[in-house]
């Protein structure tokens, strides 16, 4: 994947298995968000391809943030009505036929008490739960989250991790997420991919988040220090 002359990703080959929780970690500028954008179909890869299973899975996306003026009087349930597929939301408000689905999504994410609150007054942790509720309205099979643990305190991260674990076990969701928070990754992920322009290694959280391995993977070019990891061609 290249942008002009700069190469963001090279030789990245990742297979996401149904029902797994895959975390992507790596230093800033490693191409994590670019990888997510390719997976979501927002960026066509310069070379190579993105293959989806047949039929293609429904994707729910949880962006890192929203671009809006916090003073804008948009309530949480109105935001979710805008997120609801097929909702007309003719003149703002919440269409009656979608109210139950919105309430259910808020309940699943433990955010029902926030329904009438203004979106701009929600904390980082609350906003993540609302964004996940918005993604659940898509009835997703794959949930893609871009740095869900950013701007949240430790307690909020633990709550978020528990919520995502519950959604995974209750609905069999496949999770793909990017995070800088190793505690969050260790709690939630089945597999961890370390990205630094290329895949520097893929393995279990215990293997990949090992203090002997990580400094090498975060170096530029990265160094695969452990045998047995898939890290072919590492080093740009």
């Amino acid at each position, binding site marked *: 994947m290249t942008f002009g002359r700069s190469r963001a990703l090279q030789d990245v080959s990742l297979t996401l298995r149904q029902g797994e929780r895959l975390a992507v970690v790596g230093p800033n500028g490693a191409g994590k968000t670019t990888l997510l954008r390719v997976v979501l179909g927002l960026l066509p890869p310069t070379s190579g391809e993105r293959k989806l299973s047949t039929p293609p899975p429904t994707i729910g*996306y949880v962006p890192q943030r929203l671009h809006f003026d916090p003073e804008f*009087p*948009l309530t949480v349930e109105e935001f979710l009505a805008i997120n609801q*597929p097929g909702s007309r939301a*003719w*003149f*703002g408000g919440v269409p009656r036929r979608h109210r139950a689905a919105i309430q259910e999504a808020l309940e699943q994410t433990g955010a029902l008490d926030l329904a009438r609150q203004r979106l701009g007054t929600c904390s980082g942790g609350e906003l993540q739960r609302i964004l996940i509720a918005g993604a659940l309205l898509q009835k997703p099979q794959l949930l893609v989250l871009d740095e869900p643990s950013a701007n949240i305190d430790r307690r909020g991260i633990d709550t978020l991790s528990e919520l995502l674990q519950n959604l995974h076990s209750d609905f069999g969701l496949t999770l793909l997420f990017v995070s800088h928070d190793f505690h969050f990754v260790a709690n939630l992920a089945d597999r961890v991919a370390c990205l630094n322009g290329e895949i520097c290694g893929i393995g279990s959280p215990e293997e990949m988040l090992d203090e002997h391995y990580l400094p090498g993977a975060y170096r530029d070019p990265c160094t695969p220090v452990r045998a047995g990891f898939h890290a072919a061609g590492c080093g740009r």
Partner: protein
Amino acid sequence: MSWSDLWGYEFMRYALLSALILGPTCALLGVFVTLRGMAFFSDALAHSAITGVALGLLLQERTGLDLDPMWFVFIFSVALALIMAWMNRHSSLAPDTVISFSFTGSVALGVVIISWLGKYRLLDSILFGSIYANDLNDVIRQAILSLIVIGFLVSQMRGFALSTLSPELAHVQQLPSRLLHYLFAVLVAATVALSLKMLGALLLSALIVIPAATAKLVGGSFRSLLLIAVSIGLLVPPSGVWASAQLNLPTGPAIVLGNVLLLFTCYVGKSLHRISMNNSGKRSELKHGLRSGR
């Protein structure tokens, strides 16, 4: 002079109808203009209408055809809006930089053409508007445009709102965020072109931005924001026309001042409400503290 007296004059009837049609349309559009942070964009398009009029006059003079310059304003505004929207998406320049040079460049071109044609007197009506020059054709065109703009905004409400909050989220949900981005720029341009006669290039963006800004101060939800903004658009412009007739004021400035006065009143009211809420909160805290012996 009563409303019925005013209605008796044909020019006043058309002015009031224009105000009733364009006020709510501009206000509804303004909600999305402010949500998308495009107030400067609409202001720039209004100012660049000078060039559209100038190009129309130039073509009229060179070809001898009797064309309404408003069509040139429409075509020029739409073209400029699309260019600015494309540059905002694709160039590395900041959006306000793109708008700034497009706006000043086009105004400069318009003034050069007008000076070349020796029609400086026209600048007055372009800059400040001439709502009493409206005729039946203008009112019909404005009504058709309003139906189109309101129809698009209301039917594509979800797409416009979601692509503003997160273009990626809109794309993942299969909403045509890129198309909506350009379509919105065209809607702003078309509204600016047809509202030019009412307020003029200098004051027009007030009709778009101020009702939404006022509604944002007092609205508690997106629905209330939309309803309040449209209500302001329905009430203030006709009241401005009426006040200008009563007090012998220029109409465009009277409408803008009416909007500004309402905005200021809402701002002061909200600030006072906030202060009284804070004070009552402090009082109840104090009472609670005394009761619990702290």
